[in-house]
């Protein structure tokens, strides 16, 4: 790898994935300096020349002070742009505000579109993300977007860590059916679906199971786990239908609010998240959490992007 023409930047917080990508590629992260004053305004400086270089900015934005991280990212992009970088790629495995992607209520903002506009305004030329909440978000951008998949890594995790021959893939809602069905096909397993019946007046909405889970290991698959209310309900329904055990695998483990308490009190045996969203601190509080490392997927995509090779391989196969 021609490492004199590539530089990788990361902010000073949430650097775990960036550091592991840097180790994987054998290229140190560029020295940078980030200073914040009491109001939160950020002053960012790049310590090396980035003139005419291929810049990759690796950030993890998930929960907590999301707006701070977003503005820091924008300022980092702008710093590289005004320092005459040749191309700036933002590697942002968990895209912030992705859930606000349509006007489902009157006058709701489409903040995902605003995020796309802000990234391009700041100077980003390319975006690499993973498991976008809706893959149509790629259309919000005028610049190329590479939406990577966590699925190959999830498949490998299941093969290595679960008794998967006796398992069944479950989608916790109708919207995720396509994702779960695709995974089931890859593993050659059966598939089940939990459907929320629309509530009538004076009735609580019920959740119905479509499919048979008797005496099986249920693997619930979803793209995001935020407060985990849905996952917890799904787990108790599955156990109520005499499943053997229930584990959940999600790509983005946001885990905000009461999530940890909900998981600890639930019938889930395990919740596995990838490290797109940093949640290492929460692992101490919740023994049911486990992590799938996808930094090698990002590292391989950066390598291929820099060398001008195809990344289609990453959509189907996991990286060794």
């Amino acid at each position: 790898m021609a490492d004199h023409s590539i530089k990788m930047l990361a902010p000073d917080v949430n650097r775990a994935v960036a550091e592991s990508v840097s180790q994987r590629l054998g290229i140190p992260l560029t020295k940078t300096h980030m200073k914040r004053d009491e109001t939160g305004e950020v002053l960012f400086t790049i310590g090396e020349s980035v003139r005419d270089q291929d810049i990759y900015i690796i950030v993890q934005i998930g929960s907590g002070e999301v707006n701070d991280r977003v503005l820091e990212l924008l300022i980092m992009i702008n710093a590289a742009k005004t320092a005459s970088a040749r191309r700036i790629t933002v590697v942002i495995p968990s895209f912030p505000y992705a859930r606000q992607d349509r006007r489902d209520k009157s006058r709701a903002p489409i903040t995902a579109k605003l995020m796309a506009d802000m990234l391009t305004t700041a100077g980003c030329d390319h975006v690499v993300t993973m498991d976008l909440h809706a893959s149509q978000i790629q259309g919000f951008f005028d610049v190329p977007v590479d939406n990577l998949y966590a699925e190959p890594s999830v498949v490998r995790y299941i093969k290595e860590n679960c008794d998967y021959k006796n398992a069944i893939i479950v989608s916790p809602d109708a919207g995720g059916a396509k994702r779960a069905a695709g995974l089931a096909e890859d593993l050659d397993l059966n598939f089940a679906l939990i459907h929320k019946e629309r509530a009538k007046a004076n009735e609580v909405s019920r959740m119905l199971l479509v499919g048979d889970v008797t005496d099986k290991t249920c693997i619930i698959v979803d793209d995001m786990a935020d407060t985990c209310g849905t996952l917890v309900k799904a787990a108790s329904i599955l156990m109520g239908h005499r499943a053997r055990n229930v584990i959940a695998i999600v790509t983005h483990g946001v885990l905000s609010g009461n999530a940890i308490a909900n998981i600890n009190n639930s019938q889930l045996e395990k919740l596995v998240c990838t490290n797109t969203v940093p949640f290492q601190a929460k692992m101490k509080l919740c023994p049911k959490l486990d992590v799938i490392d996808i930094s090698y997927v990002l590292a391989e995509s950066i390598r291929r992007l820099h060398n001008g090779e195809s990344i289609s391989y990453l959509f189907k196969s996991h990286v060794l």
Partner: protein
Amino acid sequence: MSNNLVIFGGDSHPKLVAQICAQLDVQPSKVELGKFSNGETSIAVKSSVREKDVYVIQSGCGHVNDTFMQLLILISACKSASASRVTAVIPYFCYSRQPDIPYTAKGAPIISQRKSSGSASASTPAATPTAGGKTVTTTQRPGADSPFKSLDSAIRSTIQSPTPVRPPPTTVGSSRIPMIPEGGKLNRSGGQQTPQPPSSTSAEAEELFNAQNAGYKLWVVQAGTLIANLLTAAGADHVITMDLHDRQFPGFFDVPVDNLYCKPLVQNYIHHCIPGYRDAVVVSPDAGGAKRATAVADALELSFAMIHKERRSQLLKGPPDATLTSGADIPSKPLLQHNPPPAGAPALHRSGSSSSVSSASSSKFVQTTMIVGDVRGKTCILVDDLVDTSYTITRAAVLLKDQGATAVYAIATHGVFSGDALERIKRSPIDKIVVSNTIPQERTLAVLGKHRVDILDVSRVFGEAIRRIHNGESISMLFEYGW
């Protein structure tokens, strides 16, 4: 007031929003502002804005990034809900101060280093930057590009063995100049980032910005253009603000920017609330604010004084070296050197100070402050556009009192008062501090008491500006007469 006008307020300064709406005799329109459980901002606009003239009032105070994102999302929501025009009203504009690297007389930037005497990196002869306690020495050869190689290898070696973090020192000044503080704590916790007054650094950062790396100068981000572009990208058609720190800021925008002035209010205050104002002296606390202060002084026909800070280096006795900035606290290292210094011996230094680079920069620089103008026996009125850490005005007040001023008033448009600024002002000899309410001032009143603080109300200026812009009238008279 036509029913075509819709005003939304963000949650950074609800009191000012209410006051502005009272001036206009409209109700602020309903919007639900909050946060999702994962920290993302949540906005729900509750009244129709289709084909309306929308004004979004949000001051850039409090938690800046949160208020700024809230402003952007609210503008975007209104725009995509078919508002005919969206104006952003930002009384205090965040990110408007752009850090400026100080320059020498020759025009080269000064990159000042301040190393505490106990730092490990200072003990070795600083012919080359040290890396986390390890010394990487290279001998100088004619024409060698060793600064780059040694720095490069030093950086790589620090990657393998990162320097342990050091506890943060006391706050280093109020400067937004990117100087290296004496040490710092790198907050690597994966979760919340608590704001630390000094920034994070370590020996790596020190050598990073080491002026010995003569090939690469610091590249500092100036967020002004970015912020302007973000506001336009979100959909703002017009921006109204007050007393922008940088007068050229409106040029960064593609949309019209109305920069209102607090000056008429300040003049009015001086005229009515400062006893014996005709004998008072308007003082500018630094050279940059001289123009602002003279404008006030001329309007009221008062005399004027200025506080001038000078930094002069004591030395510069050695041979002139074009590559090095004059007076910077670094040992001289001419690129051509025929006798490499023996390892362990101090490299050539400019002055007769001790051999270690750890000697405080104060021995190299003499900083004098002086007053240009006469203040003895007079009431002094300090005029500035904003007070942040309050180092500037408190130091100025001490100086003025030393020089015989009888009373010191400090008038500033924006009272940011970050950190322990208010406590500092309380201890200082400032008799009265006057700020406008572009930023909420409840804490100021609580800490200093209402006898030491006066608040200028800008809601009338903004209300009148909004009314005139909505009606398509001129706002020029606001610049002269206030409201």
